[in-house]
């Protein structure tokens, strides 16, 4: 099944429409190990490095994809649509608008946008995206979300390295869904047998920019910090909620989108904060790591308010602005180790 790529800095893209059209949804995550020189010809290097890595991936691999869709995300993503249109070779490039607000008008608008996207897909690929196919895709998605919720819950009781959890979250958005389900079922069985939560690790919640490479997850583990909760799109936000299976499938996707944890691209930001507090109430953690990728404006703009509120509620918080590189500098290591020491 050919991949259909999507570029979404949040977790709002309706993968189910792609699945119903007969493609494998593939989330563009860039590659931190590849230099971004090709993209740097079109985007200045003080713009979000992840977005430049995503563009580099698009420039190199677009011919392997049936098409590409953008989900409305941060300003950097949205404004790069034109750059992709000009420089990335593809037969189909689509920008899917998802509302920032969450009210009846926004839902109506979203419904219209999803229907418009379906029409464009049907016309381009000469397929029929029926309600039955969408319902089937929704069931597959829900299966994955349910398995991931069960797996993620094991993090508080079992010895699950951060990097291994990360690898599953990546598979969910990049690999063929049937393979993902098989992998997750096997992993769930296997992880239930793992030894208990290690005594030399400290349970933490990680929020902020999406961590798209495993090296950063390893650094947290080496510093003795174990992710037991996360508030990231490449993580819990992707599988926190279930899509309705009884109603009209497009309406169910709209409803689902209005219930999922909010990314920093959306407002008002107290909704994000309320969700974080809910996670912190559900799971006992020793500290919160608020890490942001350099130049990640949505998170950097939220950070002062969010951190003040979390600290104000009595939680220990460390803020780290990280470079987009697999090579972790000693200063970051020292800061994480100190955080571990004070926890």
């Amino acid at each position: 099944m050919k991949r259909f790529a999507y570029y979404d800095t949040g977790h709002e893209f309706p993968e189910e429409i792609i699945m119903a059209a007969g493609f494998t949804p593939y989330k563009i995550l860039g590659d931190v190990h590849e230099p971004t020189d090709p993209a740097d010809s079109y985007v200045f290097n003080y713009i979000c490095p992840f977005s430049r890595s995503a563009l580099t991936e698009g420039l190199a691999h677009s011919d392997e994809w049936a098409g590409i869709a953008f989900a409305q995300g941060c300003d950097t993503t949205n404004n790069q649509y034109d750059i992709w249109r000009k420089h990335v070779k593809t037969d189909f490039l689509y920008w899917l608008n998802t509302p920032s607000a969450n009210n009846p008008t926004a839902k109506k608008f979203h419904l219209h946008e999803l229907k418009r996207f379906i029409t464009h897909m049907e016309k381009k690929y000469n397929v029929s995206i029926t309600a039955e196919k969408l319902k089937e895709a929704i069931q597959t998605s829900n299966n994955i979300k349910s398995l991931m919720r069960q797996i993620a819950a094991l993090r508080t009781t079992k010895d699950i390295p951060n990097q291994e959890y990360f690898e599953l979250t990546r598979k969910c958005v990049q690999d063929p869904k049937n393979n993902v389900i098989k992998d997750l079922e096997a992993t769930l069985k296997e992880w239930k047998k793992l030894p208990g939560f290690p005594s030399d690790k400290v349970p933490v919640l990680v929020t902020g920019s999406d961590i798209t490479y495993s090296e950063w997850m390893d650094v947290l583990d080496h510093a003795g910090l174990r992710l037991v909760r996360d508030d990231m799109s490449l993580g819990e936000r992707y599988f926190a909620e279930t899509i309705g299976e009884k109603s009209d499938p497009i309406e169910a996707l709209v409803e689902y989108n209005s219930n999922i944890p909010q990314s920093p691209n959306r407002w008002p930001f107290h909704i994000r904060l309320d969700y974080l507090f809910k996670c912190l109430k559900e799971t006992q953690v020793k500290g919160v790591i608020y890490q942001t990728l350099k130049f990640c404006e949505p998170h950097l703009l939220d950070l002062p308010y969010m951190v003040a509120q979390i600290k104000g509620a009595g939680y220990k918080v460390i803020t780290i602005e990280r470079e987009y590189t697999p090579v972790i500098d000693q200063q970051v290591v020292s800061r994480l180790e100190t955080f571990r020491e004070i926890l």
Partner: protein
Amino acid sequence: MMTMGLDIGSITTKIAVMKDREILGTDVSFTGYNPERAWKEIIKRMLVNLDLKESSIDRIVSTGYGRSNVSIAHKKITEILCHAEGARYFMPNVRSVIDIGGQDSKFIRVDDKGAVTDFVMNDKCSAGTGRFLEVMARALEVPLDEFGALSKKSKNTVRISSMCTVFAESEVISFISKGESRENIIAGIHDSIASRMISMMGRSGVMKPMVMTGGVAKNIGIRRALEKRLGITLDVSATAQVNGAIGAALLAQNLNGSNLNN
């Protein structure tokens, strides 16, 4: 108990040897390319100066960026905890610590029991650190240790607005070409470091009494710029540059068999 603290910083290596809570000796040398050689040589020199044998040291704690290179350390502890402990030795009721070192600046909050409760550090950028001062000293052709005295003679503090060392250097060069006095430029450099530090401290919250540590604490100009912006007097010990090593030596005294994991 005889303990040794080694602080392997990005620019300098510091050592402190203590007997119980009394400082027997301290020393500073350049770290250079080979941190292992740096700590081995400074230990050798210290032992000769104090007429001690290595076997007479009961516990060694290493800290700083090069802490992992010290194979003989009984424990490696991050510099934030060591600086807090060192500052508490100098002022037992300290509640916050400003530490400006070679490549980073830190603000550390300490509770009434001396435990670190919060800290903030500069992000990966040399602006506002000792390295920043070194670059500026080179541009102004002034030895770094004269910076403090020269800044006292300034009549008008210039404003350095760039957030980046490289761009700030260009700004300084522009001031030189405009004929601005060295004294005024140096005062502006100190003020820009103080400004950066204050905004960082704002993320955690200032609490008194406050101690300044690290090599940059020796610079009276920086201290004055910080004091002016904070509206308080900063306490600086005579051993500010080796404060991290003193803290490491003190923490070494708390080590026992159960916490000797590196």
